[in-house]
């Protein structure tokens, strides 16, 4: 059907139908174009750079080395240290945050007069800039004048002041404690929302049947908040793995390599040695390793969207 022998009304409808088809793409264009330029282009460039031997202050000496950086990485003992630290970092921080968050959420879900206030105050760590958090805890952990040592010595839990961030065996745990503090409010808030979605009638029925508080927790509460735990947990694994600002400000990765995680190692390599080729190859490797969790999270979220 050619446009010439259709009535104006029909033509109008064809036009409207066409623009209706095109419209979503037009509406999406700005966001897609901007993200293409500031996210995907740089990313492709990162992958590209990782195949080059590129030191930023001598750009003329840049040369293609293929998988050279990755081979170097494989034989780099610091890479393996950083990988182990990353696993330790995620493996301890996320469960600790979740445990403390669950405890806080269960308490906040009870009835008491100042509940609103408590709920607002508990999220303060979440709102603070990570630099402030890192510096704050450095001050608390300070071996000479820090309040933590003062308290522990006063309570005779330790005999002499502990150099929390200067001892290679202790430093990473000290930072994990800080990050646990920073992140538990997120879990508390998410889990609280999950708890409030569980119908009260289930508990009433259970107590009529004589189920103990513990059994109610295992059979009603936990299954009720399981989806929230899974989603928030995955999100947090990705987030904690990526977050390096707190470590960077607290120890800069030291003492030695004791608190290096993979993203931090990539950042330090590029920032201090301006070794962008090697730095990006670490970043790319880290991204691929993290990819598994990202895929799990994406699959979960997109399934929800489809419903």
């Amino acid at each position, binding site marked *: 059907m050619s446009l010439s022998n259709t009535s104006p009304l029909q033509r109008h409808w064809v036009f409207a139908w066409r623009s209706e088809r095109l419209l979503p793409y037009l509406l999406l264009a700005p966001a897609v174009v901007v*993200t293409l330029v500031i996210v995907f282009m740089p990313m492709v460039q990162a992958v590209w750079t990782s195949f080059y031997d590129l030191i930023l202050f001598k750009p003329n000496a840049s040369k293609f080395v293929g998988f050279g950086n990755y081979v170097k990485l494989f034989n780099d003992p610091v890479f393996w240290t950083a990988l182990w630290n990353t696993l330790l970092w995620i493996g301890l921080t996320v469960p600790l945050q979740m445990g403390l968050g669950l405890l806080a959420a269960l308490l906040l879900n009870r009835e008491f007069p100042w509940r609103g206030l408590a709920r607002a105050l508990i*999220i303060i760590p979440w709102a603070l800039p990570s630099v402030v958090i890192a510096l704050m805890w450095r001050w*608390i952990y300070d071996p000479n*004048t820090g309040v933590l040592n003062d308290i522990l010595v006063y309570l005779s839990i330790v005999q002499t002041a502990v150099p929390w961030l200067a001892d290679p065996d202790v430093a990473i745990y000290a930072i994990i404690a800080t990050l646990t503090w920073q992140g538990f409010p997120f879990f508390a808030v998410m889990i609280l*929302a999950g708890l409030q979605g569980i119908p009260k009638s289930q508990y009433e029925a259970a107590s009529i049947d004589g189920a103990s508080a513990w059994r109610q927790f295992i059979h009603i509460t936990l299954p009720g908040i399981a989806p929230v735990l899974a989603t928030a947990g995955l999100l947090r694994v990705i987030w904690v793995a990526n977050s390096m600002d707190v470590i960077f*400000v607290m120890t800069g990765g030291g003492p030695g390599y004791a608190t290096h995680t993979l993203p931090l190692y990539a950042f330090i390599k590029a920032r201090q040695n301006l070794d*962008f080729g090697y730095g990006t190859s670490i970043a790319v490797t880290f991204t691929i390793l993290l990819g598994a969790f990202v895929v799990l999270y994406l699959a979960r979220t997109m399934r929800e*969207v489809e419903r």
Partner: protein
Amino acid sequence: MTQQSTFRRIITTDLPVLLIVLFAMAPFVWMILTSLTPTATLSATGVSLSPMGWSMDNYVRLIEQTSFLKNMLDSLIIAGGTVVVGLLVSVTAAYAFSRFRFTGRKLLMMQFLLINMFPIVLLILPLFVLMRSVGILDTHFGLILANATVAIPFAVWMLTSYIAAIPKSLDEAAMTDGCSRLTALRKVVLPLTMPGIISTGIYIFITAWNEYLYALTLGGRNVRPVTVAIQTLIGEYQIEWGLLAAGAVVGAMPATILFLLVQRRLIGGLTQGAVKG
């Protein structure tokens, strides 16, 4: 009987909650106390716990001897700019996602979710190289763009769920009355989504204000947001904790106050996002 149950509630609920609240607040309160203690007292007897030993000395020095106010302005421009850029491009995108079913919809939605998961370190290095060659390193514009990498995908997802909550029949009714799609978006959907847009904007503002790694890498002499400025307060030979604490308190204030003001709605949106996808 009721007295006994009140007592029981205090032991099993109020007291544990109080402990957790104290745990959450103590470090920041300690920072505030530190900032109120003059440096001389701090090195002699430590942090002053009584109001008798407090003074605004550190805050006065912070304003007079450092460029902190200028740094606050930098942060304000960057965070404000990120909010504008983030919301402008996201509102229409979110409308498209929630109102149209088109080829590639799922893929594009996933793309925005995926960006949010990318390690910042993977972006920061090429962005540095890119911005250096374009010549926007150390400018407000450069940092606004960098922060937009986080803000846009977040805003798209938040706004999609907000707009999806508004019944389609409303804009269809407007269109039957002769409005075009875009007029319906402007006159019907936007006003109804305003609360959601505002809380998304505030959350973007907070994240951009608190952001540190981009500011450190892509900023410099001209543009130095507070998060970087706070760290430069660390002296060359010894750390001046009083001054540093004052900077930290002032630098954290805007975001913290905003967060407390809007926490209820913000958390509603965030948890909805996580619980329902």
